[in-house]
């Protein structure tokens, strides 16, 4: 086959994906960018919606809150998911692994909204958590968990531990057992083998899951709205607030572009681990 024919086939193969991205990502994103430059009440082009974000501490704080929550969620999820994936990959017998994986991803099967409201019932002052601790005598007064940042983090972690477990498990299963054997032959203890051999080799799986967790959590509106109780605002809540009554799409677009920039920066930070062939 000639080089020209190969090029034509190559273009024919990628054109649907390119068109899809163009129509459903690039064009809407550009439209949002343009909309953000025409603030409500202004007569022409203006950066007012962007300057407002940096000038108003309560707007800026929404981004800080989002970054804090998302970073915590990502770290906690990794710390919980890694041993979970390890147990699935190396401790659970091969014939039970499929069932165990299915059980692990069960939360994905329920509606996101239902899952968040379920957590609200568990964490409420008269919910399952407080009732259990009060009845067992471990608490004398109920603790407030619902409508707090902790509730938002718990709701997120429950979901994203599953996601990270899948990416890390896939990575662990690809590793040849010979790596551990070779490390042991060379005198490494199991802990040393894990830290110096296994962990670096599973870093791509961790980073893929961490990146997905970060992106999905920082853009999520439902969980902080239901579980956080608006005692503080995260960036997606601030974006929705612009639309609710006032329908200020220009301001909402500017805030969305800023959110997109944060996600892009996170991507660049993780890019070296996000190459498809390594994941």
């Amino acid at each position, binding site marked *: 086959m000639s080089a020209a024919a190969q090029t034509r086939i190559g273009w024919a193969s990628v054109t649907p994906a390119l068109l899809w991205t163009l129509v459903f990502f690039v064009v809407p994103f550009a439209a949002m960018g343009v909309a953000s430059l025409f603030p409500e*009440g202004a007569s022409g082009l203006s950066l007012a919606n962007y300057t407002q974000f940096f000038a108003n501490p*309560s707007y800026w704080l929404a981004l800080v809150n989002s970054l804090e929550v998302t970073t915590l969620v990502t770290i906690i999820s990794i710390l919980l998911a890694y041993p979970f994936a390890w147990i699935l990959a190396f401790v659970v017998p091969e014939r039970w692994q499929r069932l165990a994986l299915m059980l692990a991803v069960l939360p994905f099967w329920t509606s996101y909204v239902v899952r968040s409201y379920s957590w609200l019932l568990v964490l409420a*002052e008269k919910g399952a958590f407080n009732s259990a601790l009060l009845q067992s005598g471990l608490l004398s007064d109920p603790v407030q968990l619902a409508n707090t940042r902790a509730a938002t983090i718990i709701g997120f972690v429950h979901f994203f531990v599953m996601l990270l477990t899948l990416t890390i498990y896939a990575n662990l299963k690809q590793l040849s057992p010979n790596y551990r054997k070779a490390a042991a032959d060379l005198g490494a203890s199991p802990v040393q083998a894990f830290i110096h051999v296994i962990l670096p080799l599973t870093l791509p799986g961790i980073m893929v899951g961490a990146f997905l967790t970060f992106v999905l959590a920082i853009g999520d509106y439902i969980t902080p709205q239901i579980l956080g*109780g608006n005692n503080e605002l995260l960036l997606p809540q*601030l974006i929705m607030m612009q639309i609710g009554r006032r*329908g200020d799409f220009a301001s909402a677009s500017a805030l969305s572009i800023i959110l997109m920039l944060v996600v892009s920066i996170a991507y660049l930070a993780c890019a070296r681990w996000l190459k498809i062939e390594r994941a």
Partner: protein
Amino acid sequence: MTPRSFYRAAGTALVLILLARAASAADELNALVWCDHSDPNLLKPFEDATGAKVNVKEFEGTGAGLAIVEQSQPGDWDVMVIDSIDVRRGVDRGLFEPLPEDQLPFGDIFPEVVMDAMTKIDGKRYGITEKFGYNTIGFNKSKVDPADMQSMASLTSDKYKGRIAIYDYYLPVMGMAAMSIGKKTADLTEADLPAIKEVLVKMKANAKAVTDVVASQTALATGEADILVGGGEWVTAGIAKENPDLDFSVPKEGAVLWSQSLAMFKDSKHKDLALKFIQYVLSPEGQARLATSSCYWGMPANSKAALNDEQKTILRFAEQPDFLKRAQPYPAPSEALDKKMQDVWTEMLQAQ
């Protein structure tokens, strides 16, 4: 089946579906509504009487509703439920059709909620109030002293610290904050905002949570909070049978009067049906059903609503003349002031 016969059958099915849709569209009313209009108990009598199907789409917040309209084709929608203070926004966008006043029961509507200043523009009526109520103090009378609920000062005092939830909607709650320091909701200016913010921050310091509509009701119903700032009959009345201790007060400072209107779209293709729907909703039967909708209860605008005695008691029908006298209108700020009020609300939410 060969590919050709498959495509032929699929094409025929598609044509039949489109024809069926076109045929049925003539007998359908497309309504952009709040959740109280989705109750089958409200819609079914109208559908049975007219043979028409009412298709409803719910939205929250005028901005979101107007965005749906702007993303639709002219004629897609026939009627819309809208905050009475926002009727003008729809008129300014050229969306609404003037309503025939002589064919609607204006004589039976509580005079205080006719709201000409908001629903009548250039001498033409574009919206008719269908339901109203109060953003005031909702509370559990078994947990708090009802006498304390007669003053908004209780909302910022230490006595109820940690037992309060705040309804997350800036206009009515900022209106309440303004009233608590002796300001009139109709006269608010940017100069009033620092003092209002001070009250809001004190309320927030006392509050356990700032909650949306569903969470507000849940907070009171489950005992998560004993007091709801911005609550009223819209939170307590619908669950009064299960929770008879839930109540609301109109304190000495007054309450913020909320009201929702029905408007007809200028480009509606079913204006006769739309008018019939508005007439039905404003009729004594429609008003009783709307007032006691499963989503939330509220006072019917029509004073002759066919409510039974129990429903009237729950809604405190007999006390309405006094409540209406002491209530102040919903703040209706200009675009610029609205933005500033929302920013103050954002600052309150972010205050720790």
